[in-house]
């Protein structure tokens, strides 16, 4: 399918800091595209440029054939944006908020009231629509925050970490909602630093760190970057010393070893075979092993493999 969003050589500098560093990716119409990266990677900055809030230092974003730097108005008409921070009027009710945002997206009359009803239904909050937002729980606010971005059924929805800081139940609700919207034809850019979410939702993913895209592809393509390896996760009772990690990395059959807090992640073509030597080496180094798990590689291990650090520190 044709690309509806193209990000071309995007750079954003704040003084000396390069928050977005020559980022490139494109999103096909109908896709859920993930932008996965740790805190401070530059996800929000990239979304802000895409939605016309910030000017790029270099590069451009083209949405549905229109450049955001030259025709921000045209781009904004195609987009729906769900900001990372809850951006709602606390003293207005959910219905009042949604009605207002719907109007700002150009809805009116019957279309508007139907869209608001539908969004409230989708958020599962139709029965509490008259309550002020300030009385809502964090999870409920999040749902209305999302609802406000999809009222006008945009062709492209930019979602910036829409599930941060909420309970698992609300999170599942939101993920299902995104799937449903996508099934109805909405193209979604979904940023997150939770690899589970991205693995669950996304067709394709760009992994971003320090403003740079370090890998792009489908989930399977990204997993394949580690090769046909197993991931051995060894849980210790305290973070291992760097020398200990080096010791493990030097064991024959181990292709890479990285510590994430008190977990040591070991990559190997044959996880079963290196298990014993790894545990033995750790014992000699004085580290206490509390548990060992051999798994298939996931995006977390891909990120670790590429950057030597965890997504979540």
């Amino acid at each position, binding site marked *: 399918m044709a690309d509806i969003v193209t990000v071309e050589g995007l750079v954003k500098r704040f003084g000396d800091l390069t928050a977005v560093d020559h980022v490139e990716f494109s999103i096909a119409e109908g896709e859920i595209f993930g932008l996965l990266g740790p805190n401070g990677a530059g996800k929000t900055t990239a979304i802000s440029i895409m939605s016309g809030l910030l000017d790029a230092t270099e590069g451009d974003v083209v949405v549905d054939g229109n450049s955001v730097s030259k025709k921000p108005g045209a781009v904004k008409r195609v*987009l729906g944006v769900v*900001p990372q921070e809850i951006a709602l009027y606390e003293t207005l009710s959910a219905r009042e908020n949604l009605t207002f945002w719907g109007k700002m997206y150009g809805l009116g009359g019957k279309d508007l009231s139907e869209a608001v009803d539908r969004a409230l239904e989708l958020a599962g909050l139709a029965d509490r629509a008259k309550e002020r937002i300030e009385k809502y729980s964090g999870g409920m606010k999040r749902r209305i925050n999302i609802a406000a971005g999809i009222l006008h059924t945009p062709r492209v929805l930019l979602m910036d970490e829409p599930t941060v800081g909420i309970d698992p139940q609300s999170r599942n609700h939101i993920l299902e909602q995104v799937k449903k919207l996508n099934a109805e034809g909405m193209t979604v850019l979904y940023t997150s630093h939770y690899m589970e979410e991205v693995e669950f939702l996304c067709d394709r993913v760009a992994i971003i760190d320090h403003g740079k895209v370090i890998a792009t592809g489908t989930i399977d393509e990204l997993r394949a970057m580690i090769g046909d390896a197993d991931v051995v996760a060894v849980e210790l009772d305290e973070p291992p010393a760097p020398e200990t990690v080096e010791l493990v990395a030097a064991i024959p059959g181990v292709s890479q070893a990285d510590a994430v807090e008190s977990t040591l992640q070991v990559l190997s073509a044959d996880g079963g075979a290196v298990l014993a030597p790894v545990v033995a080496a750790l014992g000699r180094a004085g580290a206490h092993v509390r548990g060992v798990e051999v798994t298939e590689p996931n995006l977390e291990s891909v990120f670790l493999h590429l950057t030597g650090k965890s997504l979540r520190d």
Partner: protein
Amino acid sequence: MPKLLTVTRKDLRVLLRDAAALGVLLGMPMVLIFILGSALGGLGGEGGDIGAPVAIVNLDTGARDSSVTDVGAEITSGLIDNETVAGIFDIQERDDATEVRGEVERGELLAAVVIPAGFSQSIADGDAVTLEVLKDPGSELSANIWESIVRGIAADISRVSIIAQTAGESAAGAGLPPELVGATVGMAVERATAQDAVSPITVEQRNQTAEATVDIEGMDFYALSMTSMFLVFGAMFGAFGFITERRDRTLSRLLTTPTSRAAVIGGKMLAIWILGMLQFTILYVFTRFSFGVEWGGDPLATFTVAGAQLIAVTGLAVLIAALAKTERGAGGYGSLIVQLMALIGGVFFPITILPEWLQPIRYASIMGWGLEGMSDIQIHGAGLAEVISPILALTVMGVVFFAFGIWRLRTE
């Protein structure tokens, strides 16, 4: 345009749910007008003063040189023959100033004027002279009318007496036939105004009450000044509106929708202006009917001045929003600006008690201009045409504040 109005409606809704804002914008001025106004001038009905007794005590016996006008006599006859005085008051000529002062103090007389001994001679000698106007502070309005009539007559007579000394000295002075005196006076008045050589008689007013140490005119004064001041507090809450939206990221979010920055900012500004007009209307109606405050005979002019004042307030809101990063900061800037402007704008005391050279300082204040316009309408019966300068000045102020503000205003 429709989106601008959507923003306005949303902002008005948010503001009208803000109990703290409403308390400051409406509750506080009402309470202050009531307290200050009734401490310094009662709530007495004004209608009852028609036909109220007033007195004139003329202790002046004319100047030594009989060719100089007897100013005391002129003022006395001027007051007694004055139609307005006759229509409103029951005027008596009296000789004992002390007795009259006592009667005003006890409320037996509504007001009085005392022309001191040697008044004409002092004028002839070129000395500063003072008329003593006594008022019962319980009847503000009619006492104010009394005072302004006395001022008017005194101003006229002071011109006449100067002519008598300057132009009249060489002429036959006292011996002229009445028509000729009239002509001479007419000419000399023209000359005097042209040369701005009139030395006006100072009219000193006294509220005859023990507590009335401050020289202020009670409810009517405070209704205007407090309303004027609290309108400017609207700028602070308007600035909060910008800052809160910036903090809560709704401002950024608005700018991700297909809505121009101008519509967003314009919509918010319009909300500040409309809220202010609402505030003004409520305070106007409330003080008019609860406290019997007279705002003057031309409500259209009064509301136009208020509207212009609110343009300045709206511009100021944008400026404060640009200067302050947080609501706290805006509260700080806001109340500082309001207090400074109130102080120099004549909110706490009539500007006329400042030395003359310092009085123009009020033109740096929104309230200074607002009060100038509104009190012209209230006291001097000015209409729209006569308050054009405050209206223009306030509008210009608004534009200047806005220009500085919009230049620095951050929207994310």
